[in-house]
């Protein structure tokens, strides 16, 4: 985060002051002598309070059922929820990512040509809003069509729903682009499975162990000559957590 963003997050006060309090352009002359790690460059790990920040229990039940069909427990590794993907996404949705801080959200949006021109559907809603509305629509669909909570449906039925979403065929009402929602869920569940464990997912580095990725290692010079060899490197996390 730069200083401008810091000021704006204080609200509009700073921006509307006629004369800012003693600040002009940030002028640097000579080598800046700060040596400590910049605060806003420290990673922000998931809070491990055991509680959740934004997703309700009902939302987590629905989402967990979907995530565990996208990444089920099997011989290759634990399921998404076992690997911490709910903790991961809750933490992500509670922060800048969930708020869509990086997204350009000025209207108008033209749904009819977004996909054609941009190569992907685009949205004015933030990821948190898309999760909220998407999970509610899926739960409502299950209750209406199957007469049950989505989380109580058999695995094959959830797979069928996900398949329909992936193909863009599941009708979740005007407001929900089911294919776009599927892509968001798949992207995030994979992130939760493969991100550094400090973000709450990839518990025991299970995702990295599944494929043999050694994690946050920073020097492979001793190994470059061992081409084509199974190196069996033990993965490491940025902040040893487990």
């Amino acid at each position, binding site marked *: 985060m730069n200083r401008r963003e810091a000021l704006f997050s204080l609200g509009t006060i700073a921006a509307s002051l006629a004369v800012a309090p003693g600040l002009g352009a940030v002028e640097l002359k000579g080598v800046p002598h700060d040596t400590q790690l910049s605060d806003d460059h420290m990673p922000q790990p998931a809070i491990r309070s055991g509680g959740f920040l934004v997703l309700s229990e009902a939302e987590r039940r629905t989402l967990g059922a979907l995530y565990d069909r996208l990444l089920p427990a099997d011989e290759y590794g634990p399921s998404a929820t076992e690997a911490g993907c709910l903790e991961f996404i809750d933490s992500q949705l509670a922060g800048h990512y969930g708020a869509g801080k990086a997204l350009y959200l000025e209207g108008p949006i033209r749904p009819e040509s977004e996909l054609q021109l941009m190569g992907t559907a685009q949205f004015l809603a933030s990821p948190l809003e898309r999760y909220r509305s998407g999970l509610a629509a899926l739960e409502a669909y299950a209750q209406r069509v199957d007469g049950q909570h989505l989380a109580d449906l058999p695995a094959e039925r959830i797979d069928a729903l996900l398949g329909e979403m992936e193909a863009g065929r599941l009708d979740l009402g005007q407001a929900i682009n089911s294919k776009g929602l599927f892509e968001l869920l798949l992207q995030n569940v*994979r992130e939760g499975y493969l991100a550094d464990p400090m973000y709450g997912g990839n518990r025991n580095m299970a995702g990295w162990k599944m494929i043999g990725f050694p994690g946050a290692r920073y020097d492979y010079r001793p190994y470059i000559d061992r081409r084509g060899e199974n190196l069996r490197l033990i993965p490491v996390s940025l902040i040893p957590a487990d």
Partner: protein
Amino acid sequence: MTYKRPKADAVIVGLGWAGSLMAEELTRAGLDVVVIERGPYEVTHRNFPPSVAADELRYGARREALRPPSVQTLTFRNHRSQTALPGRDLSNWVVGYSVGGAGKHWSANAWRFTPADFTMATRVKERYPHMQLPEGLIVQDWGVTYDELEPHYDRWEKIAGISGKAGVLNGALQPGGNPFEGSRSAEYPTPPLERSRWNDLFHATTEKMGLHPFPIPAGTLGAAYTNPLGINLAPCTYCGFCGFYGCGNWSKSSPNACVIPALMTRKNFTLLTECTVLKAEKAADGKTVTGVTFIDSDRNIGFQPADIVIFAAFQFDNVRLMLLSQIGTPYDPATRTGTIGRAYNFQTMSYGFLYFENEYMNPFISTGALATQVDDYNGDNFDHSDLGFIGGAGILALSDQATPMGMTDRVPAGTKLWGSEWKKAFQHSYQNYAKIQGQGTSYAHAESYLSLDPNYTDDNGQPLLRMTFEFNENDRRMARFVRDRIADICRQSGAKTWEAMAFPDQPFSPTRAYDSGHTIGGTAMGLDPATSALNRYQQSWDAHNLFVIGASSFPNNAGYNPTGTLSALTLWTAKAIINDYLRQPGLLTR
């Protein structure tokens, strides 16, 4: 509040490769230089040491090092009959947003263009007098030649510590290098990187096919090195957190590691950070500019007067600043007149995706530029007489995909992308997948151009830049030819399955995975003010104390990454300013 700062000899907008190299030259020549940079000050030890950088979620997936669309994005359409839409989420528009610019987090493929790339119009006339080029294709000489740029390429490589192996040294072929390259006056400053497993396989395969593989030049250093500015750089550790990441080791060439530490010690250098330049101000005589207006981090408006103004704000922003400052004539595709926004071009990609069996590619051993390439089908290195297109591609085995999230889609075509089927396939592919990239040339077209968007604005309320772009027939023919050469290599490689594709077979869109981020042209340099915005010194034809440096100057793109060439051009322009312009301000092409 508005305020006026003390006058400078020169003000430079943006502190990436172009801005920092220009500032280094001008301050060394004694000029009082102010650089205005939109992003914050960032250095290795404070902002991206190894304990911070090795974070794929943050830098690879969320792309935190880049300028977010919320601050400024572009609008896009394929044809001018359409209404352009803004890119809302992450896309292939990968733009820098801090001191160091995109050079802080680039992948460091550190190329020179071939001599022919600068003079294709002349070349076509001489070598292919009967070739029918598609209607509307823009092919024009740059006005500067490879031979003129050679000393400046050499200087940049030495500042950056580029690793590699010369193929042609003072006209003599060298074993192990690229036999097709323009002649070099010196060997690379650091030795080539070690080859990855995949580089090795590709090398053996292409050599057997009679092609000429060589290690590509890389700004991931082959050895410890001290550059001409006295700065120590470290050898690359192949960590794989490279493109999109700042380097924690001082072992990837960047403005932050290679130039800015020296600049900061100079008394005649001033850096304003977190200030966005809104436009240059025109003088009453209409022939010069007086300085630049900017908005600072308190949202106050400042004016920086200067005798010389240099836009080094990246290709997109250079073109946008020209349009916002109303300097020169905006391009009009209906009449095909005007030069600002004209000659917009890109990079035409082809790919081979290969899947082996029982391999350990160990993809995590990687740099952004760990590659073996063949140039047999690049530029004008082969005879195009009966081919119906100009240009070609560098074809390379690139070991740049190290981290897992970015590889989740790399499973053989037709594989289900979720469930146990995907987990199984991904586990297998992670060690068995490999990639061949065809990084192709791009020639501009009369219907592809940049302009200001009439509907959407940035966080300062200024119009976004609008891109109107579609691949042209020359791109399509070239890319299909390259795709077929890639397929030949795939077939010989021993891969179990593979697919080869030419990107222009689909309409262009800004979010297609694996497409290039190399966006080029819009303020082309050249010899004729009717078809170029800048003369051969990157000096505005319309305001002689305004210079515009960056890939925005290239009338066409070569089958290589652009940064080596924009850096060499920057040094060429710096020399012209110091040796000629300062003595007698005015158009340098008088």
